């Protein structure tokens, strides 16, 4: 499939796309059967994104080098006050500075 696509990655992307579409149409399919979602189910579904993304953050912090840890610690308070782009820039500049001066 040339330089544009590799078979393995393309299949993986197709699988990811099917999974994503399933979530987008899923509530429509569910609501046609249930009148409303039970509260505990809704609370569980509601928690899924934060829970999943936390599992990508915490081990990256624990296993990361010192520069990565400092950058994440700097980005956290920035994220509480500002939007995503300033947060990314703050973390990025921090990691560059740490690696340049200590690295």
């Amino acid at each position: 499939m040339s330089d544009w696509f590799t078979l393995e990655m393309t299949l993986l992307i197709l699988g990811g796309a099917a999974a994503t579409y399933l979530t987008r149409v899923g509530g429509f399919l569910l609501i046609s059967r249930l009148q409303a979602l039970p509260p505990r189910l809704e609370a569980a579904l509601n928690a899924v994104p934060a829970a999943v993304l936390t599992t990508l953050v915490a081990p990256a912090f624990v296993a990361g080098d010192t520069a990565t840890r400092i950058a994440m610690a700097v980005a956290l308070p920035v994220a509480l006050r500002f939007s995503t782009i300033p947060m990314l820039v703050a973390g990025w500049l921090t990691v560059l500075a740490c690696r340049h001066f200590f690295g």
Partner: protein
Amino acid sequence: MRTDFWEGARGGAPVLVSTLPFAALFGALAVAHGLTVGEATLMSAIIFAGASQLVGLELFGHDIPAWVVILSIFAVNFRHILYSAAITPFMAHFTLPQKLASFFLLTDPQFAETVTRGESRQRVSFSWYMGFGLTIYAGWVALSFVGAYFGRAMGDPKAWGFDVLLPIYFLGIVLGFRKRDNFLGIALVSAVASVLAFHYVGSPWHVSLGALAGVLLAAALPPKPALSTAPKIAEAGE
């Protein structure tokens, strides 16, 4: 019909502008993680959900079985189930093919705008919905291509400090959920469980085990009566 479409497109324009940097960043990071320009663009075109696309990139490189990657993408996109359940009542007059096409374009801002419009008793027409959604979609795919195309010139991501962008980006999204019920407990339990699983079970199980711990906690805690989760307007598929 046509005026509805353009009204939707005008509504989508500010969202479009705010998502363009993310699309370019995604494209550049995708190439840095070994995807081709075509694959990066394809991913934006058929997944069209930013956070899960970045989760995919994070997991592609680590010898992780395909089903775990796909399950993780599914899990990050889980919130769409709540969105489509919530906007279905406003689409009662759509035909089934129109509904199925609309759900493909369902993102955080699309959900927020559709609910706002529907609840203010303005008609949610298919043309308006498509005008809003296609505006964001076209920009997302085009800028992913541009980011990937120019990203090829960059070489090793670590030399540029780009390796920290994904964890920091995910940290930002997690913090964006901080107003939700029981956020602190869920994040803490998932964090501890994922770190423990990372050390004692190994990658990639830390993702599913850590997430499972947080979700079980959410289901076990006493439910609150009126759970409303209209998200703040964020990038396409935050």
